[in-house]
């Protein structure tokens, strides 16, 4: 996929962006775990201030976490803009280069203009140009992803997709605050995981090792792909479930393990749900538990078991069939370790009544598990991906592509 020469600094920058995104995921996880997502009622301002000038004296209680989340998000947005501009500049010349840079700059400036601010929150406080961007970003994201496929080997379009995705992610977060919609929170949490994985994939494509080898995988190595695919899809579904459970703000629907409310399958009758709500001592403002949430947690548990089995089998088969010393073997073992850790964190989160630090660690290891699954998939299909990208319109690109 790499057409321009390998740039160690660009690679390091992408790794830095991925690490910053992981930090952002941690702060975001803490915000949800502590139930303080609405502690700063207005957006894009913070208590009527430009968010960069909110006095330190205001950074107390939930404001500290939510405001830090916003600032780290801006930092990740800035890193992604630089990454996109850098990669765009590397692969283009002339007008195309300037057009890309102008687009990035114009969007950054639009985001920098915060409007007059309305400290009372609500949709009325959101400037009109943010509402315009909310409509524009999904369209630009779809367009740039389509361009990735059309141009076959253009990393610049991948980077541009990441840039549009990070803007969309910021807008989703802001609209969740301004419109008081938990559903937007689910989309915000899911896109966060996808964005992190996307940046990890980008860093992989920029690594020296990515395009170094043309060694074709053996038949047995090819057989591993479906295991990686199934496990990664299961993990993604699990992340969706987790995001849905967390953003319903109802806390733990089941607080014992391995049983569930003392049974193998918990009672979800109206009487039982009333009893659960009567018994639990929620320490923060939570919505009442519903039967759906109890069932969701059961599905989450079953899926966790299934993922552990599939990932363990994948790792075992990889160790058996992949060449000694191959990256695939190392990543597969790391994947299994992550899943084991994730399982332990999930159990502890339940048994300790969902403390914010454990619940956040569970989110982070979940994100790492999904990203590792995607990296494994890309590694397993590396030769095909490279072959596809090398067959692209390398020399005669209509949009000013630089070739190696």
């Amino acid at each position: 996929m790499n057409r321009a020469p390998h740039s160690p600094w660009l690679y390091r920058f992408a790794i830095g962006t991925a690490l910053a995104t992981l930090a952002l995921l941690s702060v975001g996880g803490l915000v949800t775990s502590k139930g303080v997502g609405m502690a700063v009622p207005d957006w894009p301002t913070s208590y009527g201030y430009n968010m960069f000038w909110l006095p330190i004296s205001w950074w107390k209680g939930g404001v500290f976490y939510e405001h830090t989340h916003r600032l780290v998000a801006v930092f990740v947005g800035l890193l992604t803009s630089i990454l996109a501009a850098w990669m765009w500049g590397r692969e283009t010349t002339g007008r195309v280069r300037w057009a890309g840079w102008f687009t990035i700059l114009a969007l950054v400036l639009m985001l920098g203009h915060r409007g007059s601010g309305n400290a009372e929150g609500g949709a009325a406080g959101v400037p009109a140009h943010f509402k315009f961007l909310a409509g524009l970003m999904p369209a630009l994201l779809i367009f740039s992803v389509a361009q990735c496929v059309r141009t076959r080997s253009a990393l610049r379009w991948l980077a541009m997709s990441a840039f549009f995705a990070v803007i969309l992610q910021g807008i989703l977060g802001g609209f969740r605050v301004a419109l008081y919609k938990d559903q937007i929170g689910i989309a915000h949490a899911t896109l966060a995981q996808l964005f992190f994985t996307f940046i990890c994939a980008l860093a992989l494509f920029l690594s020296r090792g990515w395009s170094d080898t043309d060694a074709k995988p053996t038949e047995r190595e090819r057989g591993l792909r479906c295991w990686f695919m199934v496990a990664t899809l299961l993990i993604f579904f699990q992340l969706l479930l987790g995001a849905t459970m967390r953003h319903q703000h109802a806390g733990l629907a089941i607080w014992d393990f391995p049983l569930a409310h003392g049974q193998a399958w918990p009672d979800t009758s109206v009487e039982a749900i009333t009893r659960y709500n009567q018994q639990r001592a929620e320490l923060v403002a939570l919505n009442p538990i519903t039967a759906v949430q109890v069932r969701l947690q059961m599905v989450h548990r079953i899926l966790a078991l299934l993922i552990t089995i599939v990932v363990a089998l994948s790792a075992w088969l990889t160790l058996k069939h992949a060449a000694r010393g191959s990256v695939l073997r190392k990543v597969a073992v790391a994947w299994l370790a992550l899943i084991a850790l994730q399982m332990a964190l999930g159990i502890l989160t339940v048994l300790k009544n969902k403390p914010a630090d454990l619940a956040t660690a569970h989110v982070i290891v979940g994100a790492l598990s999904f990203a590792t699954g995607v990296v494994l998939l890309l590694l397993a299909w590396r030769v095909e991906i490279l072959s596809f990208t090398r067959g692209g319109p390398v020399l005669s690109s209509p949009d000013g592509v630089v070739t190696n």
Partner: protein
Amino acid sequence: MKMTNWFLTTTALLAAAQFAAAADVTGKITLKGAPPEEKVLPLDPVCGKLHTVPLKTRFYVTDGKGGLADVFIYIKSGLTGAAPAPSATPAVLDQVGCEYTPYVIGVQVNQKMNVLNSDALLHNVHPTPIVEGNKEFNRAQLPKGPPISTAWPQSEILLRFKCDVHPWMFAYVGVVEHPYFAVSAKDGSFTIKNVPAGKYVIEALHRKTGKPVAKEVTVGANGAVADFTIELQ
């Protein structure tokens, strides 16, 4: 003009007659079953300094003899004619020591309600209604800042208020279309004042127990007594 005078006099007489026939409904709420132990709230250092003893949850506030506090009791059905206008006196919900006080209050539809901040620190006033027509908002309230006034156009039992700066802070407001409601005291006692004579269904709801308990009562010249037992499952 004569017609108007006649109308006003009749209305006044009717209102006076109704008031004369009005009486109180009293009663007691008893909790059956052992409630779970209250937990210590996870206060942050700033709020923690405001208390000498750890602050606990207020799910089942009892007097130790079965009396249960914070139960919202109201006339559910049986009222005829238009409801009296809301009281001109605003209902008050205060924030003291990083806690909403009281934990449960009642207001009439469209009655003014003032949310105060008696603390020397920032709070967010964030009601989360679920009934259409009652609008959610989230407003910052500065340390000892001016009250935030609101009113609710639709009946909603119980409407939650929270503070997102201090997520352990939450309280509930029972919004009903008439002024015939009460919240039980620590000994479980309550009084619904000036209920017109008639036959009614009275309902009692404790936020945590979830299931409302209803009773039919007939209010006469001497009022009525309605005791409720709320059972834990």
